[in-house]
Each structure stands twice: as C-alpha cells, then as structure tokens.
C-alpha cells in the first residue's frame, strides 16, 4: 500500500523518536513544516488514517494530550520508507 507524503513523513518522524512517544502537536507541526500546503485538519486526518490503518497508536495523558507511537506494523512500514 502506497502512503501519501504526509503519512510517510509522520511514520518516519515517529520512527526517529525511537522508544519515545511523540506529542500530537509535534507530529502535526512536523507534517505541516514539510507540507505547508496542508491545513492542521489535513495533518490530523493523515494521522487519524494512520491510526485507523493500525500503523500508529495513541495514548492520552492528562495535561499533555495524545502521545503517538508506532505499532509493530507501523515500525515495519517505516523501515521500508
């Protein structure tokens, strides 16, 4: 399955995080810095699609918000990018 550039970037960014989860805001900003034509909504949609496809998983932490990490499927996909 081919991923669009925003989703590819999100997976690569999460892969660079290693064992650390990435805050949702930082992930959204990463996408928008490289793809400034995308709105925050577009970036959020790309992230949600990745979650729905089982590539990433989020945990909610009070005061911090959602922290995203790669699932094993996402880590495997990120390695191919």
């Amino acid at each position, binding site marked *: 399955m081919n991923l669009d550039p925003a989703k590819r970037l999100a997976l690569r960014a999460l892969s660079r995080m290693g064992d650390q989860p*990435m805050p949702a805001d930082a992930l959204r900003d990463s996408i928008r810095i490289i793809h400034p034509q995308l709105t925050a909504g577009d970036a959020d949609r790309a992230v949600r699609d990745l979650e729905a496809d089982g590539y990433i998983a989020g945990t909610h932490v009070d005061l*911090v918000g959602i922290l995203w990490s790669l699932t094993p499927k996402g880590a495997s996909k990120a390695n191919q990018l």
Partner: protein
Amino acid sequence: MKTRPSKLDQFTDRIEEWFGAEKITIAAARDRLAGLGCHVSSGRLSQWWSARQQRAMEDQLLARVASGAQLSREIESRFARNAPPEVSTIIQLLQTIILQLGVQGTSDERLLLIASNLLRPVMEWQKLEQSKAEFGLAKERFQRETCELFVQWAEDQQAKDILSAGNKSNEEKIAAVYQLMFGGQKK
C-alpha cells in the same frame, strides 16, 4: 525518502552553490550545466531542485526530531525514576515542550529558558527526596547506636546490681547509676 537517481546528482554540489550562494536563475544554471555536458530542461532542473530542497528540509526536521527524542530520553532517565505522579506530569509536559520546540527548530532563548525553568521544581523535588533519604539513614543510625549503648549499659553487671537492689530507694539508685555512668557524685 527514496528517490530515483538523476543525471543531475553528480552536479549536486555545484548546483547547491549556484542556487545557494550565487542565487542564479534556473536558466543560467541550465546553461552552465549544458557547458558541463549535461543537457536538461528548465522544468526538469526546477523539479529536481525542489525535490532536493524538500529532502534536505525533511532530513533537517527528522534530525531535530531525533535530537528532541534523545533529550526527552535523558530527562526521563534522569528525573522520571520513582517520581510521584505530579512530578511525572511536569516531566511529561517538559518533554512535550522540548519536542515541540525541537520540531519547530526554534532558537528563541526565552522559550528555551521557560522550558529549562520547568526543570527546577523537578530538581527541588529530587533534592527533597535526597534529604529525606539522608535523614532516614541518620535516624536509623542514631536509633541503632542508642540501642547498642542501651544493651551495653544494661548488660553492665554493676548497673543490673544497682537496679535490682531491693534495699535501696530510688534516690540512692539514681545516685549510684550516676556514679557508674559519669563518675563522681550527683549534685
């Protein structure tokens, strides 16, 4: 990002200098390339350059992400161990801010100062925990030494004799114990 090789790749350094330091036009760069035996359309050259800039930006961003993650990991290993929930939240907030600043590539010293100031309560808490631990150890040592002294004293036959002497009043016993412990007469 994986990209297909291009005949322009071998001129990367020169093209970077032309568009970077010299700031020449696409047309001028195309002419210079033609002079070097590389014939390419302006459209292709522009597309190649855009893709290259995009890759460079992406690499920079990913490097910042990796360095933010490393810092976050260090903060976690230094402060998060055995931290109570309220301190854990501060640590997580700090990690979030550091990652956010890292992604944005900010060099705003004010923001970085705010982020580092967030560490202060964590460090204060650590100092407090250390003081508590040291106090606990000192208290334990004091109690143990007191017990040892008491045992030593209680085992002293003379003390036992004084305490068990049924024919002496309390005053006499105290005077005798005083004599035993400190020497001389009780005043």
